């Protein structure tokens, strides 16, 4: 399977097995880091402005402004992303999000309102950065779970029903996210 390099913002860039970039970057490397976001942002502009040629008079400055905003944020690590696993994740996640919405809607309109809320802690095996952020956001859309805190490896999750089998639900999600980023599943991965 062809592998893709991804920036920490979850966007993928073509390339083969690049070394992880050092934390302090030279300006040139920084410029190169911005090439891929620039392409994505230009595509967004093109889609919005219907690819009209004269629109780039404003689109160019818009992309530059957006890239400048990106440089205000602390630099982040790159991740390798497996496109096929990402697609599979998207499909699975869409089904889970629908399940989550149906579940909470039924609880809301049911006369008995079956709730047994509480907090639980989860120790994630996913490394810091995009995978962990993706986990926290995905947890919030899964049935009955909402991420309330992420501190290092510890993820605090609010549950609509505290008897939910966290290990099964979140474990499965972690394995799928690990697959998206080509990470060994279930193992401790150093950040």
């Amino acid at each position: 399977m062809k592998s893709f390099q991804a920036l920490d913002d979850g966007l993928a860039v073509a390339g083969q097995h690049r070394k992880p970039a050092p934390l302090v970057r030279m300006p040139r490397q920084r410029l190169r880091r911005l090439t891929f976001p620039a392409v994505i942002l230009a595509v967004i502009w093109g889609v919005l402005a219907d690819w009209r040629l004269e629109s780039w008079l404003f689109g160019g400055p818009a992309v530059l402004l957006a890239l400048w905003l990106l440089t205000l944020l602390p630099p982040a690590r790159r991740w390798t992303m497996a496109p096929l696993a990402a697609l599979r994740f998207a499909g699975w996640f869409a089904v889970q999000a629908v399940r989550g919405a149906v579940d909470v809607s039924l609880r809301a309109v049911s006369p008995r309102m079956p709730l047994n809320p509480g907090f639980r802690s989860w120790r994630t095996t996913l490394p810091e950065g995009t995978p962990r952020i993706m986990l926290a956001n995905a947890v919030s859309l899964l049935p009955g779970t909402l991420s309330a805190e992420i501190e290092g490896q510890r993820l605090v999750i609010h549950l609509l029903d505290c008897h939910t089998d966290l290990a099964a639900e979140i474990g499965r999600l972690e394995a799928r996210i690990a697959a998206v980023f080509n990470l060994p599943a279930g193992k401790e991965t150093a950040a």
Partner: protein
Amino acid sequence: MPDPLLVFDLILAAAVVGLALGALLVRDAFAGVLLFVVFGLLSALAWVRLAAPDVALAEAAIGTGLTGALLLKTLHHLRGDLAAWQSPPVAAASVPSALRWTNAALAILIVAGLGWAILGSPLRTTGLELLVADALPHSGVENPVTAVLLNFRAYDTLMEVVVLLAAVIVVWQIERGLDRRPAPDLGPVWQGFARLTLPAAAIVGVYLLWAGADAPGGAFQGGAILAATGLLVLLGGLYRPDPAHRPVARLLFVLGTVAFAGIALLVAAGSRVSFEYPQDQAKALILLIEGLLTISIAVTLMALFHGREPAAQHREIRHER
């Protein structure tokens, strides 16, 4: 069965009036602000129903989003200061009844005047629509709203920008100081969100500006989206206002007004009147003015939200108690 859209419109109108009353009458200021924000959102919906998407966009972006943020910030500011004050009891009875009756009489006069204006106006006329449609080819743009705002009645828009400029000048006169609190720790999830959203929001803001030439959008709508992006940057502590940045900020505040007024006067140099753009350059001039206006509007709204001139405070103005 009545027309479902008519039923919807009636409910919408009743909700807008109800929310306005609620925002005015509710005791808790925070609840009042929230009601005002919802009121603005439903007003935007009402503008959509009136087939005025430009106004709806402006209402949603400025009237609701940014004004809501400004009001919440003001409330926070007031409560922070008032807590040290030991708030004096504000007695409703302290307003003299003569003043109340005068206010009531004036309000009734205004309502009566508005009612007379509506009832007295001819029914189902096209208004100025036909005139605008006739002149549209000469305006340089295809969106009639932009044509009116930036060409036919441009002086009106210039005055609006001046109002915004005056507001920021006053705010910088009243309050100055530096925020020495550390940037808030919003956590990794916020970081990931900002990384994706801030650049995209900037693109959308400029797109709204660009789209204004032939579709709903324009300098105020685009500027409001960019200002909202700026608010996120300020709130997340990604940018901290610095005294050294003041000259640039001042330049950006006046940029739009100066360019707008300057171009208006320059085109008057020929045998034209001011604001009478030469027809073949009209689109370029309008886009130039709108672009610079957008920058000024975005930076000014950001500065209004920040609410103070970034300068070292020489005098302690705060009242001790």
